[in-house]
C-alpha cells in the first residue's frame, strides 16, 4: 500500500495522518504539495488530511477543492483508486465534486472537540474490513463545520445504496439526540462514493492509534487500508 498525503497551505493534521499510515502500512507516505499536478507513480491511496486549508476563510474546502493537484486526485478516484478525506479533507472532497453534499456550520455554531462514538455501517469495504458491521468505535472529533447536509434525493440515494459509512451514536450504538454533535442529517459522520473507493468522514481515526493516547479504535481503518 503506497499512500500519498496531499498538503495544502493550512493543513494541520497531515503529520498525524502520516504517522497513522506509516504504522499500519510500514511505509512512510509521500507528502505531496498542493501545487503539484501529478501523484507519485504507483500511488494506491490518496489522503486529504484535516486542517484549515486556506484558513477556511472562504467556504471550507472551496479553494483547496480547486487546487492544482485535485485534477490528479479526481483522475485517481475515477480509475477506482482509494481516496480518503478526513475533516477538512471530507470538506475538500465535497467541494471538489468527489462526494455529494456539503458540511455546514455545527448546529450550535460552536467548534467541538471531544471523544465521540461512531457506528460502523458496513464492514465490506476497503476502508472498514477490519471492523464489524454495527460495531461501535470511539474516536476524536474536532471541527466547527461538520454538519452534513444534502438534498432529500441525495440523502435517499446515500441511504438506499448503502453509502453511509459511519454514524454518530452513543456508547451503546444508539443514534440521535445528544449523540449527534453537529446536527448532521441522519447522524451521518462519513459517506462513501458510489463505488465505495472514496470515503469522506469528519472524525479523526488518525488520532486513535495508540493505547497511551485515548485508545486504538481508529486503527481498524488504517489496517483495513493496509490490507486492501
Amino acid at each position, binding site marked *: 500500500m503506497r499512500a500519498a498525503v496531499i498538503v495544502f497551505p493550512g493543513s494541520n*493534521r497531515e503529520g498525524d495522518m502520516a*504517522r497513522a499510515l506509516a504504522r499500519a502500512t510500514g511505509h512512510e507516505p509521500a507528502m505531496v504539495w498542493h501545487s503539484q499536478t501529478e501523484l507519485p507513480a504507483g500511488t494506491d491511496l490518496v489522503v486529504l488530511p484535516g*486542517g484549515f486549508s486556506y484558513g477556511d476563510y472562504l467556504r471550507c474546502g472551496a479553494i483547496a477543492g480547486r487546487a492544482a493537484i485535485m485534477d490528479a486526485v479526481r483522475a485517481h478516484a475515477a480509475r477506482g483508486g482509494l481516496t480518503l478525506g478526513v475533516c477538512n479533507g471530507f470538506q475538500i472532497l465535497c467541494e471538489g465534486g468527489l462526494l455529494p453534499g456539503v458540511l455546514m456550520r455545527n448546529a450550535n455554531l*460552536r*467548534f467541538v*472537540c471531544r471523544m465521540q462514538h461512531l457506528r460502523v455501517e458496513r464492514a465490506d469495504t476497503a476502508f472498514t474490513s477490519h471492523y464489524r458491521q454495527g460495531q461501535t468505535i470511539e474516536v476524536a472529533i474536532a471541527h466547527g463545520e461538520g454538519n452534513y447536509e444534502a438534498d432529500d434525493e441525495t440523502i435517499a440515494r446515500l441511504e438506499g445504496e448503502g453509502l453511509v459509512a459511519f454514524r454518530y451514536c452513543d456508547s451503546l450504538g444508539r443514534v440521535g439526540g445528544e449523540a449527534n454533535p453537529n446536527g448532521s442529517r441522519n447522524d451521518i459522520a462519513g459517506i462513501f462514493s458510489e463505488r465505495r473507493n472514496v470515503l469522506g468522514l469528519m472524525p479523526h481515526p488518525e488520532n486513535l492509534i495508540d493505547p*497511551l493516547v*485515548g485508545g486504538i479504535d481508529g486503527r481498524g481503518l488504517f489496517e483495513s487500508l493496509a490490507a486492501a
Partner: protein
Amino acid sequence: MLEAALAHGLKTEEYERIVALIGRAPSLTELGIFSAMWNEHCSYKSSRIHLRKLPTKAPWVIKGPGENAGVIDIGGGDACVFKMESHNHPSFIEPYQGAATGVGGILRDVFTMGARPIACLNLLRFGRPAHPKTRRLVAGVVAGVGGYGNSFGVPTVGGSTEFDESYDGNILVNAMAVGLARADSIFYSAAAGVGNPIVYLGSKTGRDGIHGASMASASFEADAEEKRPTVQVGDPFSEKLLLEACLELMASGAVIAIQDMGAAGLTSSAVEMGAKGNLGIRLDLDAVPCREEGMTAYEMMLSESQERMLMVLKPEKEKEAEAIFVKWGLDFAIIGKTTDDLRFLVEHKGVVEADLPIKELGDEAPVYDRPHVPTPKAPILDADAIAPARSNREALLALLATPDLCSKRWVWEQYDHLILGNTVRAPGGDAAVVRIRDERKGLVLTTDVTARYCAADPVEGGRQAVVEAWRNISARGGQPLALTDNLNFGNPEKPEIMGQFVGCLQGIGEAARALDFPIVSGNVSLYNETQGTGILPTPAIGGVGVISDVALASTIALPGGGKTILLIGETKGWLGQSLYLRDLSGRRDGAPPPVDLEAEKRNGDFVRALVLERRALAVHDLSDGGLAVALAEMAIAGGVGATIDSLPSGPAHAVLFGEDQARYLVVAEPAEAAAIEADAKAVGVAVLALGATGGNELNLPGEAPILLCDVQHAQQAPLPAYMAGDDSVFA
C-alpha cells in the same frame, strides 16, 4: 512636542529625559518610538527592580528571562521552550480578536526560538456572571482562543477559567505556549555581523494595533470601547504558514538572528536585535510590505499587525531563504542592514525619520522604584466560630455548581485538545500530559493562581500560586522543572497596588527557590484597572514538568470499587479565604491558608513516587473547595462513588471544605494503602485513611447519601445553561 509626548502616555520628566538623551526635541516618529519602547509593557519600568530578585537559574535552565521565551533542557537532547503572556485589554474591547491574537503572539514567541509548538494552555478571568458583559466576553474569548489555536494546529490542553467581580471591567486573558526544540539549535534575537541584511517576513503591515502596547500600559476609563481600533486582527492561517516557513528557514542554516514583531511591532523588534548584538540598525521603510497605501513612517513603526517576523540572514543564503518564503506565499523583503555605529536610523522616502542611539533606547528607559505599602495582615479565622451555612451535603452540591468549581467542559470542548495525537491527559484533571513524539517521555503542564489569597496576603498568595502548580505536576507523576509567570496587577502608581506586586513577587521567589522551580520567562501586565477599581492581584503561574514514561501518569478518576482512599497532608480546617466562606457565606475575610514549603516538598515528592511506582491508582491535589470537592471531582471523573468513614478531627464543615495546603487524595488497593500509610509515617508525611470507593453514591459522615448522578448534574449543568442565556444559574 511636550503636549504630544503627554498624549503618547509619556510623563513630563520622561519627555525631558528624552530631550537630554538626544540633545534636541524628538520628531513625531521618534516620539512614537520612545513611547513604544518606554511604556510599561515594553520597558518593565515599574517592575524591573523587583523581577531581578526572582530565581531564574538551575542546571537544566538553558535560557532564562530576556529572550522571546524561556528554554529548559528536558533530556535526550530535547529542549522545552515556553512562555505565558497576557492580552487583557484588547480582549475586553474585542474579545474574539483580542484573545485570538494573544494566542498568536505567544505561539510566535515560541517558534521564533526554533521550537515547534506542541501545546497551549491559558488562564482566563472574567467578571461576575451576572454582569451584563460577562456572557458575551466568555463566548468571544473562548471562541477566539479556540479559533486561533485550532486553525494553527496546536492542542490547547489545559487552563483555568474563573470569575470575580473585580474583573467586571478588566478581564484577564493569559495564554501560554509550549514548544519543543533540539537543545543545540535554539535561535536568539541578538544580531551579529556588520552589513548583514535585515529581512522582513510574514504578513503585510497595516494600520491595526497602532499603540497597542501603550494601551496595555494605561488604565481603562469609561471610553474603553472607543479603543477598538487599537486591537489587532489575527490570521492563524498566515501564522501557520509563517511557522512552517521559519522552521524550514532555520533548518537551512540561513538565520543569524530572529525576533518576532509583537508589542510595539517593528520598533521593538529592530531595536532589540541591534541593542542585544551591539550593532546599529538602518531601516528603509520604503521596502516594508504595506497592506494599505500612504502609510507614514510613524504608522509603520508603531503598527502591531500580526504574523510578522524580523530576521538577520547570512547574505549568501538570501536567495535560498526567499525561495522558501515564496513557496509558503509569504512576504519577504530586505528592509535594512546592520551597521557598526550603534544608531537606530529610520528612513522613509529619502527623509531621515528617526536617528536615535540604539542602546539607550532600551537601556536608558526609566526605571522606577515606586512607593509600595504592604497589605495589612488579615486575622486568622477560627473554624469553630464559623457556623456551617447549611448541611455539608447541600454545601457540596452548591459549591460544585458555583462559577469557579463547576465543570468547564463547555470551554475546553471548543479547543482542539487532541490534535498532534500526543495528548495523554486532556483538560479536566490536575495537569495536562503531552507525550513527546513517539517516545515514552512527556511534558506535564498546568496554569494556576488563587487571586483571593493574593489579595488577602500577597506573600502567602504568591507562594501558594507556585506550590499549587508544583503540586498539580507532582500529582500527575511529573517532576516540576520550571515556570513562567504572568503578573496581572492594577495601577502600580498606587502604593497599595505596588505593595501587592512586591509581596506576591516575594512569595513567588521564596516558593520557587525552595522547590527548585525557577522562573525562566514571563510577562508583566499592570494598569488592570477600570475607572479607578483594580483587579485582584493575579500572578498567573504556568508550570512545566517532565515525566519519564507517560504510561505512568496518574488520573484523577476513581478506578472502581473496593479501593482505599487516603488523605496525604495535614488538615486543620482552614476556612479563611476559602470558596466555602466566599460562595456560601458571602464572606471575603480572613487570612489565606499558610504555605509550608517544607511540607509541600516532602508531601509532593512522596506522592510523585507513589505514582511512578504504580502504587497509586488515582491521585488528585486538594485546592479550591477542599477535600469534599476533590473527592467529588474524582468520583465524577471515574463514574464511581465513595464512602467516607473517618475525617481529620475538627468541625466537619471546616475539615471537608477547608483549603489547607500541601494535600492530596490518593487511592490504592487496600493492602497497598496500608503499606503507603506506614511509609508515609516513616518519612513524616501526614496520612489518614478516609474510606473506600464503590457504589453510585457519595457518602459523607453523618449526611444523607448523595447520588452520583446528582453530583454530576450539579457540576456539569451550570455553565452550559448560563451560556445558553439562563440567568437563574449562578444567581
